[in-house]
């Protein structure tokens, strides 16, 4: 979870191990796979690795999921900030 300088570019999360036409991956791909073999989450399968900019206790950081492998992880998606549920 490295601290990174914050520019004004619209940076976003990137799945690792997936070849992309635009936007270079933030870190080295974990494995070189074609688009047709793109990772999809399923129970019993490996969690797709990714990097993403994050906010954590007053700081902006960059998170790579696989850096937390070795621990249990709870990954929660939600529709949006300032929504009601």
């Amino acid at each position: 979870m490295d601290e990174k300088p914050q520019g004004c570019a619209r940076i976003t999360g990137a799945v690792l191990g997936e070849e992309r036409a635009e936007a270079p991956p933030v870190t080295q791909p974990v494995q070189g796979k074609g688009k047709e073999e793109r990772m999809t989450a399923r129970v019993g399968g490996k969690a797709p690795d990714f990097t993403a900019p994050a906010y954590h206790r007053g700081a902006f950081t960059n998170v790579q999921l696989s850096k937390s492998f070795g621990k249990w992880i709870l990954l929660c998606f939600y529709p949006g900030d300032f929504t009601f549920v």
Partner: protein
Amino acid sequence: MSAVADKYKQLQQLGVEVFSVSVDSHFVHKMWNDHELTKMVDGGVPFHMLSDQAGNIGRAYGVYDEGQGIELRGRFIIDPDGVIQAMEVLTPPVGRKFAETVRQIQAFQLVRASKGTEATPAGWEPGEAVLKPGPDLVGNVWKVWKPHE
């Protein structure tokens, strides 16, 4: 997410790292934390709030809604080997129940600690009897476990 933030200590005790993800920027995450969530949870959100503005991560996890440009309520429990043990996906208007997530984590941790020799029956809660799958249990589950109520 405030519900998870509120009970974060419980997850820490179980050794669980928490990541939340939405299509909002990390700048908006900061504003949401500073202006609303800190009023709901002492000290604000204790875990990393990730930004997935292009929906790349959401697509890989099957929770990105292309039509709305948002991520559905997807919850994934990932074990120390990086394997997804559980997932639950809800459409936006219904929230998750935190206690069920904790129960599932405790069950998966028990199974892992037993190296797969134990399994938890339906509705299992920590402290209750577990099943030990093997030749002797075949056809005999009724002797050790019944679906009460």
